[in-house]
């Protein structure tokens, strides 16, 4: 059994079984990260291109490390360093990259659907590393992996996502992944940050953090984008922190063995208080470690399916 697909663009398009396969594969690959020599030859001779139109040191580094641990060659392309000029479309850029025999293109782009658009235009495998507010599937997969690792399961857990749901690709992908795997998902945010019709995605919506935290197994905090402040979504950072900051007192409302996750980077004192972020309930660094395994798993599973590799045969 394999993923049977060329690209990983969304969680929406994955079945629960496919998510499980990725998680199982990642679990097997996690061992590689614990070795003295953290490298296996599985993708020897393959080329992975990180095409990042938005800055993201963390995600790019994680993909880079994943590719290198599988012995692939990695090239980083970003609009500032590449010859991107205004007028060149994403597809033009990507075709150029494909012409350099890239097997996997990892794309971060500010437009929703950019990865899907790219995947249609190139034979290389495309991994969506975040497209606008749409999806960030690898983040959701590493979150699910971490939850499974810490809790032994996902099904039946009460998981709350806290923060700007409307403008968060992490939230969208996590809602889809967690509901597919049978978790009870809650979201909590000011109503200005809840998108239209979200309840139809099978989540329960809260506007009060204290109520939302009751009886939760997992808390996923989202980063508050400070640039949203100017767009009338919030009165002030101060008020947001007062209403939505995860403090040690609020944490007591959750189950005693609750874990706290955050995709990083943290706004300490805004969405999460430092004492929570640094406490043992926070598994934020495990998420980072697991991110590499999950991305290795994806690259391995997709590598058989790039249309380029068939052409080369």
């Amino acid at each position, binding site marked *: 059994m394999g993923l049977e697909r060329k690209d990983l663009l969304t969680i*929406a398009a994955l079945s629960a079984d496919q998510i499980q396969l990725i998680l199982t594969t990642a679990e097997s690959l996690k061992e590689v990260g614990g070795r003295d020599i953290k490298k296996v030859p599985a993708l020897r001779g393959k080329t992975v291109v990180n095409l990042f139109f938005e800055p993201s040191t963390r995600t790019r580094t994680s993909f880079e490390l994943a590719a290198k641990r599988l012995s692939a060659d990695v090239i980083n392309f970003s609009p500032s360093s590449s010859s991107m000029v205004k*007028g060149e*479309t*994403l*597809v033009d850029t990507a075709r150029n990259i494909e012409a350099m025999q890239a097997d996997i293109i990892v794309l971060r*782009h500010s*437009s*929703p*659907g*950019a990865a*899907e*658009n790219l995947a249609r235009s190139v034979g290389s495998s495309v991994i969506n590393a975040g*497209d*606008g*507010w*749409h*999806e960030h599937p690898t983040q959701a997969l590493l979150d699910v992996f971490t939850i499974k690792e810490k809790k032994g399961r996902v099904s039946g857990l009460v998981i709350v996502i806290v923060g700007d749901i409307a403008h968060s*690709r992490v939230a*969208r992908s996590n809602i889809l992944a967690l509901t597919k795997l049978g978790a009870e998902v809650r979201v909590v945010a000011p109503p200005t940050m809840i*998108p*239209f*019709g*979200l309840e*139809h*995605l099978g989540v329960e919506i809260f506007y009060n953090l204290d109520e939302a935290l009751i009886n939760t197994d997992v808390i996923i905090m989202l980063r508050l984008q400070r640039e949203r402040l100017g*767009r009338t979504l919030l009165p002030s950072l101060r008020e947001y922190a007062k209403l939505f900051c995860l403090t040690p007192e609020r944490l007591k409302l959750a189950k005693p063995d609750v874990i706290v996750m955050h995709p990083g980077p943290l706004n300490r004192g805004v969405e999460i208080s430092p004492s929570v972020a640094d406490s043992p309930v926070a598994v934020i660094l495990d998420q980072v470690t697991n991110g590499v395994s999950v991305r290795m798993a994806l690259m391995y599973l997709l590598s058989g399916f790039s249309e380029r590799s068939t052409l080369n045969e």
Partner: protein
Amino acid sequence: MTKKTGQSPPFPHLLCIQGGIVIDPGHVNGRADVLIQNGSIIEVGFPLTNPLSQDSSITILEANGWVVAPGLVDLHCHLREPGFEYKETIATGAASAVAGGFTTICCMPNTQPVNDNAAITKFMFAQAQEAGKARVFPIGAITKKSEGEELADIGELVDAGCVAISDDGRPVMNSLVMRRALEYAKAFGIPVVDHCEDLHLTDGGCMNEGMVSTELGMPGIPDASEEVMVARNLALADLTGVHVHLAHLSTARSVELVRHAKGQGLPVSAEVCPHHFSITEEAVRCYNSNAKMNPPLRTDEDLQALKQGLVDGTIDAIATDHAPHALQEKQLEFDTAPFGIVGFETALPLTLRLVHEGVLSLEQALDKLTRSPAQLFHLPVGSLQPGSHADIVVFDPHEEWVVDPTTFFSKSQNTPFGGWTVRGKVKMTIVDGRIVYDAR
């Protein structure tokens, strides 16, 4: 397309379209022949009684049982010239129009420079004259440069031939400016056309705000963005007593607001675009930028309400909002690609779908494309009554064909209907008794 040649070859002074079903909304609906002399219609009937119909110099055009109707009239299109000739020119736009059966088109002022003065208006007329295809009537700007601040020289625009005023594409946000525009327009007896959109509510949205935008992570344009401006304009029409024409309605509530206003006798009219009653926001799912237009594709509920609005007369006209964009612009990502689709060459078959579905009769449908829009803008076209300009479309209402944007006469191919199998094919378009499009 053949090279632009200016005037077509000299046309016969005496012409007869025979063997067709004439539908001249409100006047004729049935088997009839059409007799044309020197570019004017002199008789419609069967059999013709005018002795000229027996004249030996007559040229007979066989209509084979096809529909013969007044040439279609479009109140809303973008011809892009001057300024954006890479998207469309008045010549290519007019050629596209006649290929779609349109003989009269009203072009919006959002060119570069904006049509806010007589020089631009006259330039547009001259270009249309040289193209020698459809009649082109410019719509002037409401405000200078369509910046929404100072009124344009509306009297001068009307004098130069503008048939209406609008800041389409950059709607007038300031309600006081809109009030003054309406009051000022009263002196010239022209309608004021508004693209109803509250740009603050739109807030960078690029598709309908709804379940699909939530799933796609796309910034949405709420229904309210249109409806608050529809409501404002209705109130201003009431206040000023001046005819407000509401462009491209897209939501169910907009239709309801207009229906209510008409019930109260307000001087208001409304148009709808074929895409809004043909497809919904679902068309955006594969991030097809050719499904991006403003107002956006809405839900099925809205689509049904728009159809109902056509049926009960709340919506007076079907307009294309023909908005060509170059391929490279539409190849951008969905959220950064420009709004708009081309419409001339698909409007008739998409409207005929409503006829084939039984929503409208053929005469009702043609009324929304001919007589009714012509009356709204006081245009001297839209009828086959004796004495009218011989502006005629002949089409086979049943012939199936597959929409292939690469064959469009328009310079641009941005349509979501490529690959659709549609029914209803234009066979011949005649302007002033000249055949300007012939696909027999």
